[in-house]
Each structure stands twice: as structure tokens, then as C-alpha cells.
């Protein structure tokens, strides 16, 4: 019988869960847990703001598939963690938050730094729990990890009062069976229904204009390989949503990239014209469907999702399949092979494919190069960055125009190389997520694309990167504006710009970067772009920030105006004259 404190049990439980990294920042109530950390094999990364800890945990989880862990104190620290928890909830990122809480006797008294963490985080976690006894800590940790990583992944949170951390308990480690028994209401269904899978295979073999509409669920399910098999088997084009970029190589001609509000015109149009959408782990987000009533009006829908509540939430599927995307796709492949061996053949997809290539040739996602002497085009900077990026580079992004350009102009060749905030659209995500990603994959180069607005929300974590020696690279696309909002005001509010101009002078990003121990480089003209990137790529012992001074007028195209049908999408101004050929 090993006696230990609740705090020791907490850290030991995390070790038992194979946690190698914790992102966090200590304070009063969580203090006891920081003491045994000194003896632990777990690496703790001390952040500058708890939001940073949460996004780092997310970045780590994105690239490793393992749950990220953020540990912070009570009250304001717990509330600082709310944004990343919500972010992880929206994007189904496995993450475990650990918060300190005031001592059990003080709960409910408005004690110093008390807040109802479990209440506040109830709707932004998959599950959360206030642990009221030291004896319960190992089980609480096991349950938190189990729930975060199984079924539809998501964030969980354990709130631990200070006296619970200080009290003694007898160590034990609950078995899998005990964990299961404690959760009689939690039995995620991973195997798809065989009859539905058969049904889906049949539809696929009949469709004349099929599309694979692939979402983040395929990455969560680690299903990139079987997706490749399915594509090889059927020759069907793949649409990769913002959350799925990288699951299928962009170099493959069958990959149509991102659809939706800022998706490629040919991709969105192909979805509109399709007669069968094979939705694998996507959720018909409003940024993809546009006005739901006119989304893909001719398409039958096969919807594979591990979360039963996604079935029919937005679009009623003809064939709903609840299950793990990888397991279901594997079965689907088998069914299709069986049909093919039985002599069933797909209709000739030739006409459909040539329509798609027609759209693709006429409506490439494009931009105009800047005139000499004018500000840089952000897309050009990204293309150069991509050109010069070492193989296997991981790209993270903030939220705004730069995010859409990253998704549109980067070429992803490998899964888990794209980390961004999709569902919540959290400005400031990029830098901390990049630090977390670098901790998860120290062997990879990690480039954080950021906007000037976003940068100013979480840049302090570059101090964390320097002090903790986690070198990342930042490509700051500085257009002096909250660019995405500016674009909406330009296009939909008659160019009435309201509170979107940040500044062209302040801050001085190079000085700021240098003050945080990073190398700072400012780039203003096209010929400086490549050399600056090459220099950044050659520096691997420090974080490098390149500030690209970009054109504030540049807009993201294509665009489906909010609330409109995908059929109303606006193409790049240079393509407007031929717009009617997009049908």
C-alpha cells in the first residue's frame, strides 16, 4: 500500500497516461500539484498566459493524435482556459484541462480566486468533473483521458480543490473494466452498421457525379491510408475541408482542396452539382453549405460520423452510418471490392470529371501579382514559403484572411501538417499552437502563419518559445488591418471602415520579436521574400519572426457572401467576365 498525497497521485496518474508534456502556469490552488512535478519525468512548459497553455495542448494533440494537457490554477486561470477548451470542443481535439480549485470547505463562499469552473466549462467540454476526494484522483484522470480520446474526441476537464491535492490517499490504478463500469452511459459506437455500409457501397457504384466530402473526422480516425484506397478503387474526386487539409495529398489531381465560403470555386461548384456526397467525418458546417436549403440540391448523401447527433443535424442523409471513419471506410472498401468482383461497374465518370477539370482550368484560385514598388501580395509570400519549406513542415495559422490564404495556397502532402482553428475561429491560435506542435513533433519545422491582429493577441508566447527553447518560425502577414473584417466592410458595408485599422507604425514587430529573444526580419519587397525565408529556415536554435508588409486591399476570393447560396459565389474579379461558365 503506497500512501501519497493527492498531488502526487495526480502527477503519477498523468505519468501512467503516458503524458510527456504539460503546458501550464502555477498559482495558489494548484500549487501542491507543482511540487511533485519536480521529481516527475513530465516536461512542463511554462506559458505566459493560460490561453497559450490551452492552444499549445491543442497544437500538440493535432500533430501527435495524443491528448494535450494544460494545467492551471483556479479562478482567472481557469477562465483563461475557457477559449481553448471551446476551441478544442468545436474542432474535436483531445485535450485534458486540469484546474486548481479552492479548498472543499471554501467552495461556495466566494473565496479568493474561486470560480465555478465546472459550471463555466460545462458547455465547452465533452465532460468535466470536480474531484472531491484524493482517493478519486486516479479514476478521475483515467476517465478524463478515456473520454477525451475515444468516440468523438474532445476536451475534458478535472477541477481539483487544494485540500484534495494535499490530502493523503492510498495509490491504486483503476483497470479498464473499472473505468468502463463507472461510465455506463458512455459506449461510443465505432463499427458502422453493415447494412448501411452495403447500401452506401451500392450508391457509390451508381453515382454519376460523386464526390468524397472529407472532414476532420478522417484525420481524427487516422484514416488517410484507407481514404487513398477508396480513391484508388473508385477514382472519385476528394474535397478536403478546412479541418481535413493534408488528409489527401494536394499534388494528387483528384484532390479538389477546400470548399465553402472561401473555398475554390471549382470545389464548391462541384459539390453543388454532385449527385452523391460521400461525407466522411465532416459536419455540413455553415461555412461549407452556404444557405442550407440550396446546398448541393441534387445530391444524395452518405454520412459517416462517429457522433450520432451529427446525422441529420444539418442535412438529412440518405445513408447514415454511425461509426469510426477508418473502420467504416475499411468496410466500405471491402464492400465495393465485393461489388466490383461481382461484376458491378460504376457509370462512366468521364463526363463529370471533364466538367470538373473545365471549372478548374477556367477558375483557378488566383491573385494578381503586385506592381513594382507596391506592397507585397500575401499569397505570393505564402507560395514562396511553401516553395522553400523543408519537407514535412507543419503549418499553423491564426484566423482571418491569412488563414484562408494558407489553406488555399499551401500544398499539403501529408496528414497532420496543418493546424488551425476551424469551428471557433480563434484569433491568436497560431503561435501557441505552433509551440505545442513543435513540442509534439520536435523533428519537424513548424511555421506559424499569423495576421497582425492575431499576433498581438498571443505573441507573448514567443517568450515561452525562447525561454523553453522551442524554436518555431513565424510568418506574420502584416496588412495593418483586421483584414477579414475589413474585407466584409469593403464588400458588404459600402467601404465604411469601422474599427478595423490597426496601425502601420505600431508595434515595431522586429523590435518586439528581438525583445522576446527571437530573430526579427522585416520584408517589404518581392525580391527580399525568398532570402528572408531561406535565412529563417537556416536558423534552428531560435525562433524567427518574419514580418511581411502586405497589401491591405487584398481580398480573399472566391467568396460566398454570408447567408447566400453557394450558387451565388463571387469569383476572383479577373474571372467575373466568364462567371456564367461556372455551372
Amino acid at each position: 500500500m503506497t500512501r501519497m498525497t493527492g498531488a502526487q497521485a495526480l502527477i503519477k496518474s498523468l505519468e501512467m497516461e503516458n503524458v510527456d508534456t504539460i503546458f501550464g502556469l502555477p498559482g495558489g490552488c494548484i500549487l501542491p500539484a507543482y511540487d511533485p512535478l519536480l521529481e516527475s519525468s513530465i516536461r512542463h512548459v511554462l506559458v505566459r498566459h493560460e490561453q497559450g497553455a490551452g492552444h499549445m495542448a491543442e497544437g500538440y494533440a493535432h500533430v501527435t493524435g495524443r491528448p494535450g494537457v494544460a494545467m492551471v490554477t483556479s479562478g482567472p486561470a481557469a477562465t483563461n482556459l475557457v477559449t481553448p477548451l471551446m476551441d478544442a470542443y468545436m474542432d474535436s481535439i483531445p485535450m485534458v484541462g486540469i484546474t486548481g480549485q479552492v479548498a472543499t470547505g471554501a467552495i461556495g463562499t466566494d473565496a479568493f480566486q474561486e470560480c465555478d469552473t465546472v459550471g463555466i466549462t460545462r458547455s465547452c467540454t465533452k465532460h468535466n468533473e470536480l474531484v472531491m476526494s484524493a482517493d478519486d484522483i486516479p479514476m478521475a484522470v483515467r476517465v478524463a483521458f478515456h473520454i477525451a480520446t475515444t468516440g468523438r474526441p474532445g476536451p475534458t476537464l478535472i477541477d481539483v480543490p487544494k485540500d484534495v491535492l494535499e490530502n493523503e490517499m492510498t495509490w491504486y490504478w483503476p483497470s479498464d473494466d473499472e473505468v468502463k463500469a463507472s461510465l455506463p452511459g458512455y459506449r461510443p459506437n465505432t463499427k458502422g452498421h453493415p447494412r448501411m455500409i452495403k447500401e452506401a457501397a451500392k450508391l457509390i457504384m451508381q453515382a454519376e457525379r460523386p464526390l468524397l466530402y472529407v472532414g476532420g473526422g478522417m484525420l481524427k480516425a487516422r484514416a488517410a491510408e484507407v481514404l487513398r484506397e477508396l480513391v484508388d478503387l473508385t477514382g472519385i474526386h476528394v474535397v478536403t475541408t478546412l479541418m481535413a487539409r493534408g488528409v489527401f495529398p494536394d499534388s494528387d489531381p483528384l484532390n479538389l482542396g477546400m470548399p465553402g465560403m472561401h473555398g475554390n470555386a471549382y470545389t464548391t461548384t462541384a459539390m453543388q452539382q454532385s449527385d452523391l456526397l460521400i461525407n466522411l467525418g465532416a459536419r455540413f458546417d455553415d461555412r461549407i453549405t452556404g444557405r442550407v436549403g440550396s446546398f448541393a440540391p441534387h445530391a444524395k448523401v452518405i454520412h459517416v460520423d462517429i457522433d450520432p447527433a451529427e446525422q441529420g443535424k444539418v442535412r438529412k442523409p440518405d445513408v447514415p452510418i454511425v461509426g469510426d471513419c477508418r473502420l467504416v471506410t475499411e468496410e466500405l472498401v471491402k464492400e465495393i471490392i465485393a461489388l466490383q468482383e461481382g461484376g458491378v461497374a460504376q457509370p462512366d465518370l468521364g463526363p463529370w470529371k471533364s466538367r470538373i477539370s473545365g471549372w478548374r482550368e477556367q477558375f483557378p484560385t488566383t491573385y494578381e501579382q503586385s506592381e513594382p514598388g507596391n506592397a507585397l501580395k500575401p499569397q505570393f509570400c505564402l507560395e514562396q514559403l511553401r516553395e522553400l519549406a523543408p519537407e514535412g513542415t507543419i503549418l499553423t495559422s491564426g484566423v482571418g484572411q491569412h488563414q484562408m490564404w494558407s489553406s488555399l495556397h499551401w500544398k499539403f502532402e501529408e496528414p497532420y501538417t496543418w493546424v488551425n482553428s476551424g469551428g471557433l475561429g480563434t484569433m491568436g491560435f497560431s503561435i501557441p499552437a505552433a509551440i505545442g506542435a513543435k513540442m509534439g513533433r520536435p523533428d519537424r519545422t513548424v511555421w506559424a502563419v499569423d495576421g497582425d491582429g492575431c499576433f498581438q493577441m498571443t505573441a507573448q508566447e514567443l517568450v515561452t518559445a525562447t525561454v523553453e527553447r522551442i524554436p518555431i518560425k513565424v510568418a506574420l502577414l502584416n496588412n495593418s488591418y483586421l483584414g477579414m473584417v475589413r474585407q466584409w466592410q469593403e464588400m458588404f458595408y459600402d467601404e465604411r471602415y469601422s474599427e478595423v485599422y490597426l496601425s502601420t507604425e505600431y508595434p515595431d514587430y522586429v523590435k518586439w520579436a528581438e525583445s522576446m529573444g527571437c530573430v526579427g526580419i522585416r520584408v517589404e519587397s518581392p525580391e527580399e521574400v525568398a532570402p528572408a525565408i531561406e535565412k529563417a529556415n537556416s536558423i534552428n536554435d531560435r525562433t524567427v519572426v518574419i514580418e511581411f508588409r502586405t497589401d491591405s486591399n487584398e481580398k480573399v476570393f472566391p467568396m460566398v457572401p454570408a447567408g447566400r447560396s453557394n450558387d451565388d459565389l463571387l469569383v476572383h474579379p479577373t474571372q467575373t467576365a466568364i462567371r456564367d461558365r461556372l455551372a
Partner: protein
Amino acid sequence: MTAVNPKGSSLNHHILSVLVQNRPGVLARVASLFARRGYNIYSLAVAPAEDEGMSRITIVVDVDTAPLEQIVKQLFKLIDVVKISELDPRRSVERELLLATVRVDVEHRSQIVELATIFEAKMLAVGPDAMTVSLEGHPDKLDDFEELLSDRGIVELQRTGRVALPKLDRGAHLRVNTPNSPRGNTKGTVR
């Protein structure tokens, strides 16, 4: 949660009998899910269930606010929710309790007593200018009683919200989803 239709229940109401693990905050989880997803609760009753560690929440939902299927699926996602059954009103027994204090002077007391007798309500307390009655029964019956009482001037009224169980005849227990149904609910197993 919004107050609903003051006069009685619609025939289309749906009764969900939700078996939950009796953990701290479980009711808050259920309630905040309804609030967050914009579903209306018509009435709600909670009490410990027959199994130790479990509670049964009987929720009557306003079906117009969201498709029932989506409500049920979202509820299933709560880890503490173990089982959900939809009870078809035609095939279940529903009961509710009503307490009401009515202002009534001595002269008119007999009218209330008469009304109470017709409804088989109980007289719980009688004072010089008021009396308190209780009625247990089908919620529709309670609605009628309440309406008639309100003409007399109700001072205070409290209803418990309905509780329900499937009728004993075969097939009454209509499960919303079954474990192997294609829609894949995983919690429908009858214990």
C-alpha cells in the same frame, strides 16, 4: 427553459424518460443542454430511480422547437445519461400532483368543496378566507381543475411536472433507438 402554454399540454408533446447516473451537477448538465441548444422544456421532474446511483428525469419537450431526434441524440452525448426512452402519451401512464390555495370566504366554500369532490381532490387545509386543495392525476385532468379553480381566484399554485411510465401492455415501451439501429444510438439497452 421557457414557460409554456399556460393552459394544458398539447397532444403532440413528447415525454422523455431519461435515466441518469446520480452525479453532482447532472440536472444542471441536462438543463444547460436544453438552454444552449434552444430546446424548450415543458415540464421536468427528477427523483432517484429504482437502481441505486441512478435518477430518472422525466422531461416533457415542446416538439415544435427542435426535432425530437436531435434532442435525444444531444442528450445521449451527456456522459451521465445512461438510457433514454420516449414514452408515447397514448401508451403510458402519466401522473402529476397539483397543490392550490384558493381564496374563498365561508359562504362560498361549498362551491370549492363541490368542485373538489367532482375531481376527487383532497382538502388539505381550511382557513376563514382560503383553503388549500391537492389533486393527483393525469395532467389533463389537472389542467381542467386548475382552470375551474382559477375562476375562483387562486392565491398560490404549485404543480410537480409530470412523471410517466410505460403502460404494462406489450409494445408500450417504445425505445427511441436500439443498440444496433442504423442510426447507431448506443445507449438504448434495457437493463
